């Protein structure tokens, strides 16, 4: 049984990803760990501004920071992304079944139309 915490976590993941800078950071980290300086490079932003974004990602559990070096490189934690993936995997079959029914329903309407055309 999932808990409210699972759900809060998922909402937080979505909220963290609802920002193009943070998504770009996550996409960059998908290629491997990086320092804050390296992450800041492609953006026209101050280091504190980038750090703020990284903190949001850390809170959402998407990014972990190493303690082994002074520059504390950032790395991606895929677990919250998997939770979103689970959500999507659960919804896909529901939609597939709906569109199967839409297909059937359209065929049915066409048949009715044909029948009424023949009657008329």
């Amino acid at each position, binding site marked *: 049984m*999932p808990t409210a915490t699972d*759900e809060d976590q998922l909402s937080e993941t979505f909220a963290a990803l*609802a*920002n*193009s800078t943070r998504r770009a950071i996550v996409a960059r980290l998908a290629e491997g760990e990086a320092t804050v300086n390296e992450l800041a490079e492609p953006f026209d932003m101050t280091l504190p501004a980038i750090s703020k974004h990284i903190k949001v990602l850390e809170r959402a559990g998407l990014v972990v920071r190493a303690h082994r070096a002074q520059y504390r490189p950032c790395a991606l934690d895929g677990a919250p992304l*998997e939770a979103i993936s689970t959500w999507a995997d659960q919804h896909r079959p529901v939609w597939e079944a*709906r*569109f199967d029914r839409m297909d059937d329903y359209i065929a049915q309407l066409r048949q009715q139309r044909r029948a009424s055309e023949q009657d008329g």
Partner: protein
Amino acid sequence: MADDKGSVAVVIERTFDAPVDFIWLMWTDPEHFKAWYGPDGATIPVATMDVRVGGTRLVCMEMQTPNGPMHMWFTGEYLQIVENERLVYTESMADEHGNVVSPSDMGMPEGHPVTTEIRVELEAVDGRTKMVMTHAGVPEDSPGAAGWTMAFDKLAAQVASRPG
């Protein structure tokens, strides 16, 4: 989408043997919508749709259970409407008056975001209709949400390749 598995949004492409205006009605006319939308074993006793930008929708799903019928209500807001081309609306679980409720209060079996977004894109192809439906947990009107599908595709690859 490179791969259906491990995606972070539901993206489904289908081609229907009907013109685009017909498929548009499937989504925007409550009577047609009711005919196909209910998951297997469910019916849609109520569907109200104020199809204009900022307009609200309210849909009730009725499921038969051993303890009698169970009702689930969903509300949402229309964000984009381009007739026969593009429809974008949000979706949240609600009570019968359309007040948003938290999914966990409704006893949902897995974590769900409070508001999700459904986007339907239609394209006429030789009298048939190609439809792309995207259901994602980030509403398009949230800050910085533009272009998220591209980033999500990249993330999807990352999730799919993650060991164990």
